[in-house]
């Protein structure tokens, strides 16, 4: 490390090697100032803060005395008096102060998540993955972690409604049963529209309902899963298929606009990262190729990334298959004829011949260790070509599982036409929101209005509920029973809290309908579920009684249930036509790439403040879905960040801001779905609804061209954090290719600690520290959401984020290196470094921040008077100030999500990461109670526990055998801003890239 000497004159301004914004890249004066300043100019703008008083000291004391007298008088008032109820009838399983954990599960689309839910005094407060699950190993998706907020959503419907007025369950049941019975008698169809059915017991219940009501037509629809994925699988396998990556077997991964590292699939992320944690040069490392138009999180982790137009990817995939066959001798599956496909780089595709050859050689040499993954936004032809490539490679790095059929947009459109024609007697809409997410939402609304009986089952009234006469509020999944299939595992979902309101599980509604239609059905879904498990899952002849077996299954959350279903057979008869269409599908002009929102998915999470405020891992936008475009296109169109444009396509016109995104392919603009909701206080008005731009009936509904893009001349302030908290120093991130790593490792010597005038800190028992492996970290922000849940971190809203007042204790800094059209990217989690010679501690005038005997830089909130000196002195910019009262005005049910072990901070108080001191103390007390020393890895701060890539390791640096001590001595290790001599407790391990061409792209 170079030592920074303060007295030396300022060196000439040199553009940094790693940059975060376009301003930083050329080192504008504004960018330099941002590096020096602790806060953004807007953060300390006092316009929205209480004005400084002009009172004299005497006047102030006078008012203080008066206020005290008034307060004392008002305190005698009994108006706001509550009742304190002693816990005389404590539920058996609740011990005050001790957390209970429930194994449970949920699903999102076709994905199943096995979970562990932490409850305190009967309240679920935190979600992690189930540690008993062999794939998840305690990890889960950040959207699932954040979904606990929906349980306590104050806008949840608290009881059934009929015709807009509160009603009782018997009334809504009677009306719905009567409508279904009439339909059955008249032989008229009843439409049941749901999300994907991932539960075998729900599937069995739907079959029972179909038997009792033969005119029932069930459609399962997932707006975020493109028709291309569905139709591609059907064309190749003759059935719906889910491709599950098994990346622990992958040496070479080719992602065609597939964002498999976006946080949804913790198994894939863990397996990917497990092949990138090198401790010595020469160890094997996977290689990730990404071909895509819009920079995705996966693309940002690529070893070789090639920006291409999305419509070209299907032709590229077929050409790869052709060349793998002709140049590398890979056999084509029986019945596949690619003679009409031209070999080599397809015409119009900007891909150097040498890169093409290297990609082919990589795939061919890896053979079954190679896998091709295709994004759900791509066309059916691209998906067919992907299945073909994997079949040719004999890939072991993916598992094909048969799946329940999902409705495509043409199938849903046919149902809408049926409704418009008066075909349906009733419609039941369960956990779907077509009035928002169906591309022709107006047509949907007009058609639904013609259905005589319209029932809605859901959590909070949405755009679809507004049109329904019967509203049947359902339990949140944390209050409900269910089960799921996950390969060879049967996963159980059990309630973790009794129902908060007068709601009912959706399946219980179906059981009520069954009984109303005269079929035999148990009184509740729990009984139905248990009966099915006893019949089909419980091993016959088991010596364990079923009740005990089921209890153990509930405790663990899952059981092994036979073998995984067999993969469907490959049928390639239609591939010739698909290849021809792939080469014909080239779009003129600019292309629009629509994709599910990172935070919102298809809009179902748009009301979740935690997710909305989590910066998008690539753009760092919060609360909005701007139009992303390349720097070259922006220059051509004279657009800057925040400029507003009008996007017009097929009768839909959207006004939205633009963001210039490094790495975006020229000629490609992209837009996230799931924003622009019109119901819900949090979701309304955040971004624009892009679903009207989806092309129903097209083989690639999420890829559009032929639109008009025009600047409106107006500009908006973006709630974007990419330029916030710039660090001032050198070598903030380090990244090596494998060849560079070999050289660095050979020359590696552990840096000597900088000399300090302060006496060394002493740590009698423990010295907590952390190691963050930048090579394993994919930048998904799962750590940030988990931290928010664990530490009661406030949501501040888009206006405050724009001023730089976001409150996250751990942020993901994204650095670019290289050309703006295709830079390499490094993600760096940045949190309090718990410095031993912390510059924040010695400036606090009230000793609110000080050093613990275990190396923690700790905050005493009730001492803090809010001078912000500490933040001013923190070189890492990780201290967060409560400029306004973000939390303490919250009431139940919102406040029920708070972790009782973490103080809720009021206005005027500084806060920051504590290494989850409450978990450290809990671990120590537990070990002391059991009379044993702490075990390495026993204490996991929330970020460590949540990281799917296992990039963060926490432990005791005083223990030389601990994992964190061993990793901290790694030859990739460095400390950020070590030259300042603050002795941070966090060691970062340099990012590694495995490029196909050593020496970087210049070597091609």
């Amino acid at each position, binding site marked *: 490390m170079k030592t920074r000497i303060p007295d030396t004159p300022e060196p000439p301004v040199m553009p940094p090697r790693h940059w975060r914004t376009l301003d930083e890249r050329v080192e504008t004066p504004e960018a330099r100032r941002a590096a020096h300043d602790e806060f953004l100019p807007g953060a300390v703008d006092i316009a929205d803060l209480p004005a400084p008083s002009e009172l004299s000291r005497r006047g102030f004391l006078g008012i203080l005395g008066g206020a005290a007298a008034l307060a004392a008088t008002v305190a005698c008032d009994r108006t706001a008096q509550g009742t304190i109820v002693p816990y005389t009838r404590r539920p058996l399983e609740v011990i005050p102060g001790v957390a*209970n954990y429930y194994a449970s599960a949920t699903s999102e689309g076709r994905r199943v998540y096995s979970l562990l839910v932490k409850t305190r005094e*009967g309240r679920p407060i935190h979600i992690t993955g189930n540690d008993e699950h062999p794939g998840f190993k305690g990890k889960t998706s950040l959207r699932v972690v954040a979904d606990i907020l929906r349980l306590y959503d104050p806008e949840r419907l608290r009881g059934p409604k009929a015709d807009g007025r509160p009603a009782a369950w018997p009334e809504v049941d009677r009306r719905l049963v009567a409508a279904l019975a009439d339909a059955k008698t008249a032989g008229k169809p009843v439409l049941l529209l749901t999300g994907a059915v991932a539960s075998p017991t729900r599937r069995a219940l739907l079959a029972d309902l179909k038997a009792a009501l033969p005119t029932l037509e069930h459609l399962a629809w997932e707006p975020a899963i493109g028709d291309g994925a569905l139709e591609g699988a059907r064309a190749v396998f003759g059935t719906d298929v889910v491709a599950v990556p098994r990346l622990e077997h992958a040496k070479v991964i080719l992602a065609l606009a597939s964002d498999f590292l976006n946080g949804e699939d913790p198994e894939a992320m863990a397996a990917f990262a497990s092949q990138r944690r090198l401790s010595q040069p020469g160890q094997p490392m996977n290689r990730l190729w990404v071909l895509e138009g819009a920079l995705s999180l996966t693309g940002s982790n690529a070893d070789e990334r090639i920006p291409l137009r999305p419509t070209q990817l299907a032709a590229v995939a077929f050409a790869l298959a052709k060349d793998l066959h002709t140049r590398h001798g890979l056999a084509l599956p029986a019945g596949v004829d690619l003679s009409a496909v031209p070999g080599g780089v397809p015409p119009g595709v900007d891909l150097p011949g040498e890169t093409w050859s290297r990609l082919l050689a990589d795939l061919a040499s890896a053979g079954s260790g190679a896998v091709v993954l295709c994004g759900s936004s791509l066309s059916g032809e691209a998906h067919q070509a992907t299945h073909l490539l994997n079949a040719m490679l004999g890939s072991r790095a993916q598992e094909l599982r048969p799946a329940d059929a999902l409705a495509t947009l043409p199938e849903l459109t046919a149902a809408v036409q049926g409704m418009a024609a008066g075909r349906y007697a009733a419609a039941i809409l369960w956990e779907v929101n077509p009035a928002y997410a169906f591309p022709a939402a107006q047509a949907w609304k007009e058609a639904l209005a013609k259905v005589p009986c319209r029932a809605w089952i859901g959590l909070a009234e949405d755009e679809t509920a507004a049109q329904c006469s019967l509203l049947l509020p359902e339990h949140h999944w944390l209050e409900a029973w269910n089960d799921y299939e996950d390969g060879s595992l049967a996963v159980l979902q*059990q309630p973790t809290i009794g129902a908060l309101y007068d709601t009912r599980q959706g399946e219980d509604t179906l059981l009520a309908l069954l009984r109303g239609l005269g079929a035999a059905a148990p009184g509740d879904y729990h009984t139905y579920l248990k009966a099915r498990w006893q019949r089909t899952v419980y091993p016959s002849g088991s010596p364990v009684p079923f009740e005990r077996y089921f209890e153990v299954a509930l405790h663990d959350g899952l059981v092994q249930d036979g073998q995984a279903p067999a993969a469907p057979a490959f049928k390639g008869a239609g591939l010739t036509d698909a290849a021809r269409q792939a080469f014909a599908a080239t779009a003129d002009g600019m292309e629009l790439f629509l994709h599910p929102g990172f935070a919102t998915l298809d809009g179902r999470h748009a009301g979740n403040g935690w997710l909305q405020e989590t910066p998008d891992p690539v753009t760092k936008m919060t609360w909005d879905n701007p139009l992303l475009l390349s720097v070259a296109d922006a220059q051509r169109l004279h657009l800057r960040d925040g400029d507003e444009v009008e996007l017009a396509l097929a009768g839909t016109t959207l006004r939205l801001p633009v963001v210039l995104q490094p790495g975006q392919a020229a000629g490609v603009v992209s837009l996230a779905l799931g924003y622009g909701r019109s119901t819900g206080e949090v979701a309304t008005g955040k971004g624009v609804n892009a679903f009207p731009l989806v092309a129903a009936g097209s083989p690639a509904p999420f890829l559009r061209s032929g639109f008009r893009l025009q600047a409106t001349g107006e500009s908006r302030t973006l709630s974007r954090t990419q330029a916030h908290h710039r660090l001032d120093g050198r070598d903030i991130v380090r990244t090596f290719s494998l060849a560079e790593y070999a050289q660095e490792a050979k020359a590696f010597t552990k840096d000597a600690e900088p000399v300090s005038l302060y006496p060394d800190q002493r740590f009698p028992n423990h010295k907590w520290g952390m190691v963050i492996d930048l090579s394993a970290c994919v930048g998904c922000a799962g750590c940030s959401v988990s931290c928010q849940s664990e530490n009661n971190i406030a949501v501040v809203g888009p206006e405050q984020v724009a001023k730089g007042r976001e409150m996250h204790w751990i942020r993901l800094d994204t650095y670019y290196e290289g050309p703006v059209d295709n830079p390499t990217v490094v993600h760096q989690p940045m949190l309090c470094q718990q410095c031993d010679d912390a510059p924040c501690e010695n400036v606090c005038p009230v000793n609110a921040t000080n050093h613990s005997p275990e190396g923690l830089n700790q905050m005493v909130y009730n001492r803090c008077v809010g001078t912000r000196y500490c933040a001013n002195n923190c070189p890492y910019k990780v201290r967060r100030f409560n400029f306004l009262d973000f939390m303490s005005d919250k009431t*139940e049910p919102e406040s029920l999500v708070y972790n009782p072990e973490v103080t809720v901070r009021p206005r005027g108080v500084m806060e920051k990461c504590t290494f989850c001191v409450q978990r450290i103390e809990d671990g120590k007390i537990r070990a002391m109670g059991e009379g044993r020393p702490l075990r390495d890895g026993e204490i996991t701060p929330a970020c460590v526990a949540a990281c799917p890539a296992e990039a963060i390791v926490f432990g005791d640096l005083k223990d030389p055998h601990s994992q964190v001590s061993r990793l901290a001595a790694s030859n990739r290790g460095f400390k950020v801003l070590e030259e300042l001599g603050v002795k941070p407790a966090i060691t970062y391990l340099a990012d590694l890239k495995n490029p196909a061409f050593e020496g970087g792209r210049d070597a091609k």
Partner: protein
Amino acid sequence: MGTLNRREILGRLTALVAGPLLLSRKALGLALQTGRSAPPEASPGVQPPRRPTLAPPSHSVPRRG
């Protein structure tokens, strides 16, 4: 006293009058309020409770903390 200007004297007088007046109004209001026997927290209407009731789940099997 001689250094005080007219505005400060008025401010003090206002405080002297307004403080006791407000305090005594509040005290009288508390002393003479009607229906003191009724529990003050009783809801006047039939609105559903805004605070949800927490109940443990039925039939679930927790893992002990």
